[in-house]
């Protein structure tokens, strides 16, 4: 069985900062894969390279055996992508945006109509479907972005922080969608800071820090018998700030 996503020796440098440093990773087909790491660990850079949004200085990305940087269109056809921090074509309504993405992905128009109806319904966006995306809240924007990533029924979903700013109810809906997607044979890769979420949802994960993979494998392998949060801190070798610093914060009313 080939892996759904293979990253080999990815390296990307911005100026003097090495954002991703010879990072290699295998995502097994049919897994729900979590990518965790502290701020600035290179999660977004890694996912951008994997999805064809950012050209690596060195390294190779295979999606279902297709090299993303050798044959971008073939690889992109297999992926559904939700980046973080990039705008959408937000002067379109939710429905128009879905149709736009569907047409660009060459989904038959009849399928677009039925699928977008179901997606909007499932994500609770039906009542706002004809409002401009620019007027959506950040949680709704995440959800319409997820719908856009799903409209062509991809084999692999790559989501950057899909649960950020999403309310608990929608979060549960999204988790349900992702689980069903995996049960149907798809593969999901997503990044997150929230350990509880990853622990509850994922069967595989990788911990990255400073552009490198610190640990990777099935949830059980990475946890090594512990709960994920202490294990994560352990892997990163982070010390929680001790008592005795920042004491001036306790006298709350401003005497600076």
């Amino acid at each position, binding site marked *: 069985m080939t892996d759904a996503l293979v990253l080999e020796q990815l390296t990307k440098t911005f100026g003097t900062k090495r954002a991703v440093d010879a990072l290699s990773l295998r995502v097994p087909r049919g897994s729900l894969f979590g990518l965790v790491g502290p701020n600035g660990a290179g999660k977004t850079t890694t996912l951008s390279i994997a999805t064809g*949004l950012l050209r690596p200085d060195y390294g190779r990305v295979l999606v279902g055996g297709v090299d993303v940087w050798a044959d*971008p269109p073939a690889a992109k056809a297999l992926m559904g992508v939700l980046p973080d921090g*990039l705008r959408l074509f937000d*002067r379109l309504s939710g429905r128009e945006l879905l*149709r*736009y993405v569907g047409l*660009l992905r060459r989904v038959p128009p009849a399928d677009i109509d039925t699928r977008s109806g179901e997606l909007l319904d499932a994500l609770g966006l039906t009542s706002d479907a*004809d409002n401009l995306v620019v*007027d959506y809240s950040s949680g709704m924007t995440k959800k319409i972005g997820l719908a856009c990533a799903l409209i062509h029924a991809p084999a692999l979903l790559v989501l950057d922080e899909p649960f950020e700013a999403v309310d608990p109810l929608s979060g549960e809906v999204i988790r349900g969608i992702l689980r069903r997607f995996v049960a149907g044979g798809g593969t999901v890769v997503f990044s997150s800071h929230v350990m509880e979420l990853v622990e509850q949802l994922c069967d595989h994960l990788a911990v990255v820090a400073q552009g490198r993979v610190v640990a990777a494998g099935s949830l059980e392998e990475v946890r090594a018998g512990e709960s994920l949060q202490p294990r994560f801190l352990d892997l990163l070798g982070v010390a929680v700030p001790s008592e005795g610093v920042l004491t001036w914060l306790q006298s709350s009313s401003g005497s600076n």
Partner: protein
Amino acid sequence: MVAVLVGLKLRLLRNALRQSVWRVVGLVLALAYGVFLVGLAVVGLVALRFTQVEVGPDVVVVGLTALTVGWTLIPLLAFGMDDTLDPGRFALLPLRAREVLPGFVVSSLVGVPGVATILVAAASGVFWATGILPAVAASIGAVLGVFTSVVLARVVTTGLGGLLGGRRFRDGAAGIVAILASMSGIGLGLVTQAIQRTPNMGELLAGLASIAGWTPFGWAWSLPADVTAGRVGLAAAKLGLAAALLASLLRAWEAMLDRRLTSPIEARGGGERVGRGVRVDRLVGTTQAGAVAGRCLRYWRRDPRYVTSVAMFLILPIVLVVSMSLPRSGPTGLDALPVQFLAPLTLAMLVGLSTCQDLAYDGTAVWTHLTTGVTGRADRVGRLIALAAVVMPLFLVLEVTAAAVSGRWDLLLPSCSVGLAAILGGAGVASWIGAMLQSPAAPAGANPFRTSNGGGLQAMIATSVTLAATGLLALPALGLAWAGLTQTWAAIATPIASLGIGLGALVVGINAGGAYLDGHWPQVLANVSEKRA
């Protein structure tokens, strides 16, 4: 506070320079340009001072007034306003507008244009310093003039920007444009008439100087001229006017700062529902290019930046009609010829510029095109279809109106031919250049007169190449049209050759631009992303 803000601005500029070679090149070019212009102005002012030419004072007043007008107009028309220090960023600090205003005023002067203006104003002091009283008047005038320039520019761009960014502008746009265009048309006609009537340059200058001195732009600058000429009462009046103007501009800016400090988030407008737009979808079809065209057509209606572009396209026919229908002293037939050809050429250039900007306007939303694997060619074609749907009707109206006003219906066909060559060719060139060079643009809803943090130089290069290429492509058609006035073969060849050139350039531009995009999509995304300073 002044020192802190000026220091902050210098630091931000320095960090931006470190981030991109383009910015360094841009700064060097701006410096070279600034040194050249300032040198020219200073040498001219000193020379005028010692030659004591009669028209000297008039030239200086007109020149300095033009400088202030330039401060207001240039950001509106071309480069936007430097927004390195965005007041919105200070919203969380416990500051009042009154405290930070002096800092913002002074830091606005930090930069090539500000320093250049100060130097020129100082040199004008040398020109007027023929006695103690004129020297004092010149110093006061220079200080008032410099600050008026900066603050006026800031107030006008912020005020108009707020107006244009709002959704309500869409409905008011046509009205505002019509008024502005008619006014500039009338102004153009009046200036032409004045030039035709007064053959004496000195007289004309004196007239211009006295008009300039009475406009708000020239109150401060004409102060020393009036003192020198012994019109002390008039000078006192203008001093009062200039001081009052600056004071009220400062108050206006303070009010704007206050608003920005308390509501830093740019207006997003409220819950507008849109129709299903089935008609648009059916018209453009379901191919990739059709989808892009449908999306662009919606943007031409909904995005204030595109609405502003359409307004710019509209200004032209109105200026044309108004200025041509004014009564004039000269023979009418001679004027019609250049106007009828210039108007479509100008439209073509505006169309080219807009095409160049298209990817920048998408901003980071262009990732959608990357991940969906849309072909570069479909992207180019789709945008052009939408553009054609907007521009072609305008073009036809423009041509017919021009012919109707001038009465030269015989020029309609050659003028249309030249226009088509330029519009099609320019759009083709711009499709290619626009694929290669992008820079971040202010997002929709933000102040469109804000320069983004990032290369203005790429935009400048793209703009100049597009303009030059559009002109070059129109040249053969223009030549043929000119020959066609007397030669039948040329008259027949004009439309054929024009269409050939235009379509040829269009096809080449679409294919070359599309191919470039296919290989460089990630680069495009990086280019349009705002670099974090």
